[in-house]
């Protein structure tokens, strides 16, 4: 495991080398958070409810989604497509390590940096804004939140790897990723809780992996899902995770047969 930790540490050091870029990246995150925070604050005065959410629940949703996003969505796998296109994948293949774990280690390095900074930002914003935050104290909901975050993180990693594999067949790896980012932005629940959507639309998106990436962990943290719904969510998210992993294995093996290290 030591070699993977060295890779993760390398990513952390690389991040600190381009400090201004990273600070700008984090500042953008804070700005996006503030837009959402003030939007919901304006829509939902203190004693009212909207779409079944009180002000305290919705502001907790916004705060927690910022923190969870740092854990789940921080990634370096977006570079995989370009790595394949440039032929740089050959470098990874020559190393005495598992390719999947290498990319996972890069993600861990990136996630650790983002988590550290987002905790700092979260604390400062919490002190300044003093929101009516809902602290979940039920150990069951807390444990279920942690498990769903772990599943979401792994699922997101596999989906990202799968998108990167497009590089084996096409130079256009950014265009499909652009569509994915837009779908993720809206249907993972980062902008708004998905249950405000009309029921047929909500049911449709519940069948996709997107809600399991952010919305479900947030709903569990807020204690708004029943035991049955949590169990069902575990099952569907795990099924997506295994399904995408199996698909990734097939696609990767097919891609490797085509890979010619073109560009080297």
């Amino acid at each position, binding site marked *: 495991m030591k070699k993977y930790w060295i890779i993760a540490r390398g990513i952390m050091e690389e991040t600190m080398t381009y400090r*201004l870029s990273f600070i700008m990246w984090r500042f953008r995150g804070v*700005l996006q958070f503030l837009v959402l925070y003030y939007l919901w604050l304006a829509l939902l005065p203190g004693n009212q409810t909207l779409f079944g959410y009180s002000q305290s629940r919705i502001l907790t949703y916004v705060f927690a989604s910022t923190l969870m996003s740092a854990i789940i969505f921080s990634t370096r796998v977006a570079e995989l497509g370009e790595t394949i296109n440039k032929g740089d994948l050959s470098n990874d293949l020559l190393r005495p390590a598992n390719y999947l774990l290498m990319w996972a280690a890069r993600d861990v390095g990136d996630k650790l940096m983002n988590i550290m900074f987002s905790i700092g930002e979260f604390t400062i914003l919490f002190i300044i804004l003093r929101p009516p935050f809902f602290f979940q104290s039920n150990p069951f909901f807390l444990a279920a939140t942690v498990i769903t975050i772990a599943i979401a993180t792994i699922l997101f990693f596999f989906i990202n790897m799968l998108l990167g594999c497009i590089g084996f067949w096409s130079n256009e790896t950014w265009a*499909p990723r652009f569509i994915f980012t837009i779908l993720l932005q809206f249907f993972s629940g980062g902008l708004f809780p998905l249950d405000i959507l009309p029921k047929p639309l909500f049911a449709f998106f519940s069948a996709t992996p997107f809600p399991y990436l952010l919305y479900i962990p947030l709903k569990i943290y807020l204690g708004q899902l029943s035991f049955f719904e949590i169990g069902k969510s575990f099952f569907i998210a795990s099924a997506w995770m295994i399904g995408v992993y199996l698909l990734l294995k097939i696609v990767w093996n097919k891609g490797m047969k085509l890979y010619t290290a073109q560009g080297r």
Partner: protein
Amino acid sequence: MKEITRYAKIWWILTIGTTQIAFASRFGAAIFMIGKLLRFAFFLLFLVVLISKTHSLASYSFWQVIFFYATFNLVDTLPQFFLRDVYRFRYQVVSGYFDYILTKPFSPLFKALFGGCDVLDFSMLLVSAGFIGIAGSHIGVVTIGNAALYILLIVNAFLIALAFHVVVLSMGILTTEVDNTIMLYRDMTQIGRFPIEIYKEPLRGLLTFIIPVGIMMAFPAKAMLGLLSVQLIILSFVVGFLLLFGSYLFWQYSLRHYSSASS
């Protein structure tokens, strides 16, 4: 006049080049255009869902909110359509290509800003204009004066966006950081997707006068609705002029400090 024609010809040649590049992969071009339209549609859906429950937003009716959103999209897309080369500027600085541009017999600032349109944004301009027309026909009586003011304030918003892009280019020369700075500008302008009145003071004042997102995104729509005072109209143009002038001075400063270290 002769000089304007010359620059118009240069712009046209550069735009043909970038358009050919954009359509080199028709699949990629189609996906990007679909993505942009989806983003517009999804946010529209969010607004529709929101207002169907609240019935109004900051005392604006449904169609007025849609008018604000369509105007935001127009003001947001115009700089992306015309100033797309700014997004490629970092590479030009770190690779030394900018040295080559400096030797050309035209303004390097012109090339850095207007180095070719992004034709993939054209569909979004049409959609925005279409929604402005549809929403505009539902917001009540619109006078010719208000409509003219609306167009002038859109032009002013473009000039403010231009000023921001010049600042980003100047920072790119001084620090080689462009990508996150330009995205930071984009994030800031996203605040204007909603009428600025939904934000509380002092944030609202900050967004209007310090980071003039309000002037860019909300003032044109407010002028169309007849809700903007003469003082604020004058202030908008003064802010636009000062920002453009200030950004040009910053560009000249950064150019004097360009070290050509990467070439």
